[in-house]
């Protein structure tokens, strides 16, 4: 028998009619069939045609990834599924809001780290900062883990938005 296929991570853009229940259909598909969702974001991107774009980061063997795309395409309000990981280079970004509290001594170090990561201060009190940071998932992870010992008390992340590089659509 052939060796078991390796698990790959894929980022997909799914164009859907912005109508009630469409997100539930997509999420229900993933939970019902046991597929992974590492990140999912959605917003209307074409208000004139009432189209929303869902960005999904998922993982699976090549056979499972093919199934996920076929199953997504089968959903009636889905216009198209683009596997960005397969279709060429693409940009992936995520936004995080990170709240850090800490002693007076650590505040300088907190600000220095934020500066290195180009994180912006969007709220300040004598006891706390809220940083806004945009970047790849890995970069956000790195920032948060370095900040952790300095007193991270809360994190809010948007999940991944992605788009292909170059002039092509999607």
């Amino acid at each position, binding site marked *: 028998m052939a060796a078991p296929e390796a698990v790959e991570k894929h980022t997909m853009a799914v164009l*859907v009619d912005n109508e009630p229940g469409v997100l*539930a259909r997509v999420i*229900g598909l993933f939970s019902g069939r046991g597929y992974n969702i590492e990140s999912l974001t959605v917003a209307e991107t074409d208000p004139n045609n009432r189209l929303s774009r869902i960005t999904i980061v998922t993982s699976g063997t090549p056979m499972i990834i093919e199934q996920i795309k076929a199953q997504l395409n089968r959903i*009636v*309000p889905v216009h198209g599924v683009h596997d960005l990981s397969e279709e060429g280079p693409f940009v992936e970004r995520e936004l995080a809001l990170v709240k850090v509290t800490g002693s007076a001594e650590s505040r300088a170090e907190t600000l220095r780290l934020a500066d290195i990561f180009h994180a912006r201060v969007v709220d300040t009190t004598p006891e706390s900062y809220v940083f806004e940071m945009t970047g790849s998932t890995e970069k956000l992870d790195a920032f948060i883990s370095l900040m952790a010992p300095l007193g991270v008390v809360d994190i809010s992340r948007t999940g991944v938005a992605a788009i292909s590089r170059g002039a092509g659509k999607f």
Partner: protein
Amino acid sequence: MAVQPAVRELSGAEMVIRALVDQNVDVVFGYPGGAVLPIYDALFKQNQLRHILVRHEQGAVHAAEGYARSSGKVGVVLVTSGPGATNAVTGLTDALMDSVPIVCLTGQVPTHLIGNDAFQEADTTGITRPCTKHNYLVKDVNDLARTLHEAFHVARTGRPGPVVVDLPKDVLFATGLYVAPDATPLRKSYRPQTKPEATRIAAAAQLIAVAKKPLFYGGGGLINSGPRACTLFTELARLTGFPVTLTLMGLGAYPASDKQYLGLVGMHGTFESNNAMHDCDLMINIGARFDDRVTGKIAAFAPHSRKIHVDIDPSSINKNVRVDLAIVGDCAEVLTALIAELKAQKYKPDAARIAPWWRQIETWRKRESLRYEKSDTIIKPQYAIERLYALTRDRDVFITTEVGQHQMWAAQLFKFEQPFHWMTSGGLGTMGYGLPAAMGVQLAHSDALVIDIAGEASILMNIQEMSTVCQYRLPVKVFILNNQYMGMVRQWQELLHGGRYSESYTAALPDFVRLAEAFGAVGLRAEKPADVDRVIKEMIAVDRPVIVDVQVDPKENCFPMIPSGAAHNEMLLGPSDRQSSGPVSEEGMVLV
């Protein structure tokens, strides 16, 4: 005097009727309740649609399935909110698994009460999302007509399936503009591919031209595509001279009496079908989906074959089994293109090339894997089916089944020559399917002989529909192979669980003859082999609903059988075969 406006305003309920009529619906299977009273009121005032009052909403959906599968049309269901909708869920799931086109209208509480836990409120679109091809909640009467037409379009095109339209009561009372089906734009996001890619057809023709051990594996997609697809399939098989096997859902897609036909494939398929599946060098799957009942152990499935897979649903391809050549398209379109391609290539069947393969198949055939031990004291269930077939084969006969051993014996022994004549619950395996389905078949074919081949346990799951068949004088026949056991459960317990028959014996069965009479039907009983022909003839002769209680051998098992987790060439052929293959593997035990 005012001029007649081109489009008259209709109430939502009137629009429902109008849309059904415009969709060429003639029968609706339903059950009333508070939320759908406006539709029942509109039904009362018209005479274009016939409403069949079932006795349970599950029965309504199975009846619509029987109607659809035997006619090629969309089956229509009308139920109320809350319990009406939840009772329909099993039927909807059944229709989804077996790709049956159904439009199910469900009542809903008025829009302003949605989300308030109102009386008989259920989140119907939420509950039915995973068990429908698509569903809708209509919140504005001006969307209603368009939504209904789209529902029919989605149900019947592509890979068919059930569609739910949830209708809040205030929308049924509101008035709005009706739009006709042809004025409804097709949805951009839903465009199933029906025409195959030419390059793939050419590639298929090349594989066909060189195969030494080919096999056609046909499934329910052929039936769904329609009689033309089945005729083309038969034509292609004859053109090539290749052997043909069919899945449970595909029976009737190829004439069972033909010498190229090897019989049913899969868990209870014939020795020749399963061995041909295992040993073939080219498998041509047309409209089947590599279901686990067919493949058995995936790792050992047809290990030396190239596989062509024709399916209208791209998600069926490479789901369970990796194939070498995928062709997305409607079976009839693909077959038309493939036959044309073979003819253009001046394809000539090479009998000599496949002669050794046929010789091998004949040796498998000689095992007569469907043979059973005859008896003249006790009725063997297989004997009852054989006699039923022999005594009805000259008629226009439609068979439905329940689920269990009787279903498998019917699939093995009843021979279907044409599509649309065999209705069974394959994917979901729903006990209680057969009687309501038979009711639906009889409504689509009023003069035909419609028989539900049943088990005594399954029939009790929707026995209330006897009341419906009696009300509408539908001469449906229920032919019960009464073995007093949930035979299929008993068989697995015997083979896999050391003969511990936990809860598979029904201790207090009703007297089916008197039960039939209580409903107003005719009850008959056969207790010994000599009775069988007599009761069958009598059953056919009476022009009324009949229940036949055929008391069969309670211990009989259904063979051949591929034990779960085993490969096609590891079949059990009969009771004496049991030890030779050893106990079922641990891996196999966990499988259903």
